């Protein structure tokens, strides 16, 4: 196992696992914890989680590859996730995505060379009343337009 995982993380994993009648049920919360510390879930993290919960690594891989929020490789410091579902599309999500791609010089699914931004297009975020909306990591930003996007990008160092 190459990466080092903090003692705090190991302790937290044990705590979370104890909340469930079966350890395996803690898999999603534990993956969230690991991703929060490491930034992504690669093969080493899959093995680490598998060992912590007494699972075969394949059982972890199955889950990591099913859920869109688990990242299998490093991404930028700020993950811009633009909703392009119906309510957001009606109110201009498409042109916001175009604007972001031009402004950042990257396509959807890519990361800027300085490692600051990763741009993703996502399905409904559950904030349709704030359409068009996006998430910066876990922070919701609503009623976006090009000016607001420009100001947002400047505020993210």
């Amino acid at each position: 196992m190459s990466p080092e995982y903090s003692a705090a993380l190991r302790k937290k994993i044990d705590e979370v696992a104890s909340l469930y009648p079966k350890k395996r049920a803690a898999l999603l919360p534990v993956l969230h914890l690991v991703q929060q510390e490491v930034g992504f879930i690669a093969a080493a993290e899959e093995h680490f989680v598998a060992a912590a919960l007494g699972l075969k690594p394949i059982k972890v891989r199955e889950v990591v590859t099913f859920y869109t929020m688990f990242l299998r490789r490093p991404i930028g410091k700020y993950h811009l996730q633009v909703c392009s579902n119906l309510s957001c599309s009606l109110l201009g999500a498409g042109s916001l995505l175009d604007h972001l791609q031009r402004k950042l010089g990257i396509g959807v699914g890519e990361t800027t060379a300085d490692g600051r931004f990763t741009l993703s297009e996502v399905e409904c975020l559950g904030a349709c009343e704030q359409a068009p909306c996006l998430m910066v990591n876990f922070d919701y930003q609503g009623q976006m337009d090009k000016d607001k996007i420009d100001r947002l990008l400047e505020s993210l160092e």
Partner: protein
Amino acid sequence: MEEKVLTRHFGVPDLLRIEVYRGQGGYQAAEKALKQMTPAEVLEEVKKASLRGRGGAGFPAGVKWSFVPQNIPKPRYLCVNADEGEPGTFKDRYLLTHNPHLLLEGTILASYAVGIRAAFVYIRGEYETVARRLEGAIAEAYKVGFLGEKIMGTEFNLDVVVHRGAGAYVCGEETALLESLEGKRGYPRLKPPFPASVGLFQCPTVINNVETLSNIPFIIQNGAEWFLKRGLPKDGGTRIFGVSGMVKRPGIYELPLGTKLRAIIFDQAGGMKDGKRLKAVIPGGMSAPILTEEEIDLPMDFDSLVSAGTMLGSAAIIVIDQETSILDVLGVVSRFYAHESCGQCTPCRIGTSWINKIVKRMVRGEGEADDIDSIIRLATNIKGRTLCPLGDAAAMPILSICQKFRRELEGYLRHA
């Protein structure tokens, strides 16, 4: 006039704090139930209130609870469905953000009625901030003895755990939710057996939506009669309608079941944005068949919408304007289901992605003469042929768009 129930206290500052919630009468229903009522009496009251599920299917909550066997030696579980993935839907986020203790009180009452000792709140992964707020509320409830051992000094015990999903629409389907909660891919299960008898960890399980459970304290505190008066004789209570799309005031509107769709759009949500003209409305989340402008003089309740060939679903209303091309709407709908199909059932896995490919071709201006009929054939082949309702949820809006807007769609074909 229109009396709010669930959102009544939303303006109260710091409502998410337990002492503020208690100051508004919070936890009195739980105390009443735990100290003065038997579990059977709580269940009976909820049954009488005709509270239909607010997640989408509209199944009566009390009836669902009564399916849980009480005579087998296994633990029983409650899963709170806070996955809220249906496009257009954001009501549960409001309930959880503004009034998390209301949900906890409903959770206590449901657990008491069914004899449950452990509840899990399955919340969509993106609602990370909301989940932390809910965990804060849970910690407060433990501190004052409203959760944990011997709640309120009675013999009733209950633990509540918040469990975050990780981005999969299908996990809002109740058996996929159970699989996900068990640490697996969110693959829906074959039913029967239903979760009431074989659910989480193979044990009897109740799964209720956030809004459904948030209604329970009011039913217990004020009685089923009071609750029925706020809705319709067969559908008790109010409904939180979420309005989004091309309207002046998008947001949530708590109104009696049976309020007219046109009134919700034009009176409550302020009508069309920027003087645009209404073209179509999706009345119950993206899975609900679309309605044309001529069809929106409808009372918004479960049965009226079924009679109109659509459904109330999650009561999420998406308003589409004349300038929006129906092909673009179809493009978003078909992309969404192709992306979210879990891949277990062939008609859904292959059907949704073929439909998406055909629609993309039409968007590029390369649609062929028989493309619309191909989409209809593929969607019809999905309908009723999948383990879970996601197949129908994909087929229904796609079929309704093809049928009601066929002429416009034909205009986008290559040889039109």
